[in-house]
């Protein structure tokens, strides 16, 4: 995408990729994809392709990071060098350090830290291909990986962005809309608890537009939440068939 198209939304109200304003990209979720991880998940969210692995609760390394009264969650969000148009250096960028922190903080409210004192849970997220909204897709996959590892959770955490493109509030921005649009509001949410665990924004929105965007993102989250639960159940259904 070199030239900015005149309009990102056509006369019929459709977006460049043919979606309606409140339509999600196609999603595919899979649980238990990595044999060596305690829990894992793979997500395809539009053209985003992301793997998440969870390890633990296990002994903390280095040991001095362990907490006597609680488990420690650590997260690393990392983009593969080939995941974007121009090769990205594999060394962690400032963006990746920040995203690792906010992803960790979006998952923490779901965990019962006090159940596993002196241990750690490590979550590694590898973005194999990026197409806008990777932090949200990463959170959706990471929550599934933690659940797959058998770590008790208050609820699954699911994330989706909304934003403003031209003059319209839209759901689930992809790369071109993210770069050329007016604003982007990623939201992570625990639907059963009505709790927002990640909220960021860049761009400019009036307070009314902001409210609309947050509500639209939460609606998107609720739809993805159903797919998340489906993906978890599917894994165990497959195992059952093999046993029989």
């Amino acid at each position, binding site marked *: 995408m070199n030239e900015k198209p005149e309009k990102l939304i056509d006369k019929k109200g459709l977006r460049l990729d043919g979606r309606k304003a409140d339509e999600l990209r196609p999603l595919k979720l899979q649980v238990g994809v990595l044999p060596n991880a305690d829990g894992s998940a793979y997500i395809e969210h539009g053209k985003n392709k992301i793997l998440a692995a969870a390890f633990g609760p296990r002994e903390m390394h280095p040991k001095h990071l362990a907490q006597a009264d609680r488990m420690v969650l650590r997260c690393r969000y990392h983009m593969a060098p080939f995941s974007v148009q121009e090769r990205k250096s594999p060394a962690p960028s400032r*963006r990746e*350090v920040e995203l690792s922190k906010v992803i960790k903080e979006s998952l923490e409210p779901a965990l019962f830290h006090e159940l596993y004192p002196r241990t750690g849970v490590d979550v590694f997220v590898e973005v194999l291909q990026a197409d806008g909204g990777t932090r949200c897709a990463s959170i959706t996959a990471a929550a599934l990986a933690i659940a797959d590892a058998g770590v008790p959770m208050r609820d699954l955490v699911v994330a989706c962005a909304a934003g403003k493109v031209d003059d319209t509030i839209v759901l689930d921005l992809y790369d071109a809309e993210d770069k050329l649009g007016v604003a982007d509001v990623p939201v992570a949410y625990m639907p059963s608890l009505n709790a927002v665990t990640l909220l960021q*924004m*860049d761009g400019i929105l009036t*307070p009314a537009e902001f*409210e609309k965007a947050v509500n639209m993102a939460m609606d998107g989250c609720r739809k993805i939440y159903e797919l998340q639960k489906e993906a978890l159940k599917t894994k165990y259904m497959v195992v059952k068939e093999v046993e029989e």
Partner: protein
Amino acid sequence: MSSSITRVRLKQIEELIAKGQRLDERGLRDYREIKIEQGLIERAEGSARVLLGKTEILVGVKVETGEPFPDTPNEGVQTVNAELVPIASPNFEPGPPDENSIELARVVDRGIRESKAIDTLKLCIEPGKKVFVVFVDVYVLNHDGNLIDASALAAMAALLNTKMPNYEIKDGELKIKQGYTPLPMKSHPITVTVGKINNSLIVDPGLEEEQVMDSRLSMAVNDDGNICAIQKGGSGYFTPQQILEASKIAQEKAAELRKKLEW
């Protein structure tokens, strides 16, 4: 970790907040006293020191020439860096920036960038080749809570204090002339952080309140009351109602804080 001490403190802070009070006798929606001093580093093109209670931030702005980004060949470049200097807190260690200082720098950067506070189109010298690069360096001198708001305010105060060298282009060469002009600014974003303790929202959390609070929501608000950047931090959550309440608080408080800036 001093978890037993913070638990006693948590109870005390929670009991006070339930009564609408705080440790330092502020109201729940009050900032600590704010002092702004501009232009105290002569070597820097712009500088400012902000005292927010006992939290102290020094920001220096350096303006140099460099290359524009390929996707914005006609625009100057803005970069923000933050140093959690070890003199500011026993918990700050020397070494490369950790996630906290990177987050601080990126949140301050986002507020300025997304509100288009710096008129970067006026910082172009030669399209695609040479532009002015504005380095905003946030130096935390004393940590007593709410580094985000204090740093964002100090960064704005320093940018408003920044003078650019006059220049002319002769035979494709940049020549610095005598005299200075102010850095071209278009807007004045103010970042307001709302902390959540036990389901109560407080403004401008102090250090001890930060240690016990569930989570925070920082919002940058522009001159016209529009929101231009948000960051949630901490390991708790917000309900949708709390988010809308926080956004109202941010708009009100930003207008109040903006009066402290002079331009």
